[in-house]
């Protein structure tokens, strides 16, 4: 494992020299380290680059780390990771990604994740993305996440893109069974000329299934963000999406939420708000002794927390 990977790991998965639990560290398309545990088995995928991760039924409180780092320009890393989460398991999956440029060529990571959650299982999925390196090479991360949620299972996705990623297209697709819940909390900050696109497509197929999708973004400078979500209510179900964006400088945001109610008892809601930081918020924090710049910084960091 090289020093750039160690630095990226600190940021994306709070790495302090070791991981406690099962892990696989991917560095420039290769496996840098791997460890399975009794309940969580990590194996190489046979038909494509990537991993197959099996979590035994009723595994409780364990963590699995699968960070991926691209540490130089000219690397185009494509990986397929499949997670099979057994019945009644309750685990945390930490899957950060960092891309670092060292020259004029592009550095890219494209992670395609599939989650198959069995009945009554619960997963907290945490993902941080960051780009580093001062070279002019483009840093790109294009994650695709496919989710199949079985009866009464629950997946909570907590994703953050911190900074330095020039282009990203994030695609998340989910199919929910009876009583299944999908909760997505996404935060993205772009600056400079960065572009970020997010695309959600969720089918609420099972009776009493539900999705809660919250996206918060900050677009600074000349950056651009696009948000598109489709929530399809195909049964007695609840769907809620909330898209909030703060514009700073000449940042631009386009949001197009779509709700498709295909069942008379589908209850779908969307809320969206895009705009600059409210002047009153800055004034309030200034009356507490903060400067205008400090106030703006606090409001943004709180918003993206």
């Amino acid at each position, binding site marked *: 494992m090289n020093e750039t990977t160690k630095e990226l790991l600190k940021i994306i998965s709070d790495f302090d020299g070791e991981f406690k639990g099962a892990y696989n560290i991917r560095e420039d398309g290769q496996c840098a380290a791997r460890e399975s545990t009794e309940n969580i088995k990590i194996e190489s995928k046979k038909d494509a680059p990537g991993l197959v991760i099996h979590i035994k039924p009723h595994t409780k409180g364990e963590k699995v780390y699968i960070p991926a780092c691209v540490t130089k320009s000219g690397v185009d890393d494509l990986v397929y990771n499949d997670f099979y989460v057994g019945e009644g398991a309750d685990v945390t999956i930490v899957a950060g990604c960092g891309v670092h440029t060292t020259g004029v060529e592009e550095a890219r990571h494209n992670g395609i994740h599939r989650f198959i959650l069995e009945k009554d299982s619960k997963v907290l999925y945490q993902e941080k993305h960051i780009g580093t390196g001062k070279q002019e090479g483009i840093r790109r991360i294009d994650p695709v996440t496919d989710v199949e949620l079985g009866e009464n299972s629950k997946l909570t996705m907590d994703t953050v893109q911190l900074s330095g990623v020039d282009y990203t297209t994030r695609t998340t697709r989910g199919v929910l069974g009876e009583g299944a819940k999908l909760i997505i909390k996404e935060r993205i900050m772009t600056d400079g000329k960065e572009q970020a696109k997010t695309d959600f497509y969720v089918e609420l197929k099972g009776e009493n299934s539900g999705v809660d999708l919250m996206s918060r973004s900050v677009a600074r400078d000349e950056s651009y963000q696009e948000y598109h979500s489709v929530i399809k209510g195909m049964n007695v179900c609840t769907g809620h999406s909330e898209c909030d964006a703060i514009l700073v400088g000449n940042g631009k945001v386009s949001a197009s939420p779509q709700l498709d109610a295909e069942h008379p008892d589908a209850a779908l809601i969307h809320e969206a708000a895009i705009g600059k930081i409210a002047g009153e*918020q800055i004034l309030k924090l200034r009356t507490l002794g903060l400067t205008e710049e400090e106030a703006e910084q606090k409001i943004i960091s709180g918003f993206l927390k």
Partner: protein
Amino acid sequence: MLRLENIKWSLDDGRGILNDVSLEIPDAKLVVITGPNGGGKTTLAKTVAGLITPESGKIFFDGQDITELDITQRAKLGISYAFQQPVRFKGLTVRDLLELAAGRQLKQPEICELLGKVGLCKNDFIDREVNASLSGGEIKRIEIATVLARNTKLSIFDEPEAGIDLWSFAGLVDVFKEVKNKVKGTLMIISHQERILEIADEIVVISAGKVEASGAAQEILPKLVSGSRTPRPCERGAQA
């Protein structure tokens, strides 16, 4: 001590809101600024906090001319301002706001004490976002708590009763009674509620942008009560 000298401020259409206001607010007193709606009370409070810059006149705080200082500079000198309509923040929690107000990290017991002072059950609120999910009464109390957390020489509360229900208001009066006993600095409350006026040391009446009367509460309050033009409920349907 806060001293205002010949403060003038008018709207864009030329209508005068503060018409040559001169006033002294003594130290360590609870001073209530009252008067009819539209009389200039909130404008006066905002002028002291630096949210509004007067067209002419001077403001002195502890002998220092602060007329040209901005909001941040005045806050750092020891002036706090509780908004009439508290601002909501997506993402910032009650703890975040109180720590920003205090200028440092606060220990759990310190936050509990602050929230206790404004009558909020601490465990329900510490990690709650200061967003639209809070009721009018709750956010008003949190706004007051942010000012208390600063513990400054001058604390201004702009119509603390505005936008809250009768039951929450009764509790707020108790909050100010408590604050009066515990806080050493000057409290300046903009209000036209009799129950707030009753706990004042001094009362200033602002009307049509001018100081109509000012002095000890025991002198001013009886005149206000006897001269009240507020219609009683039984008079509303009466024939003229």
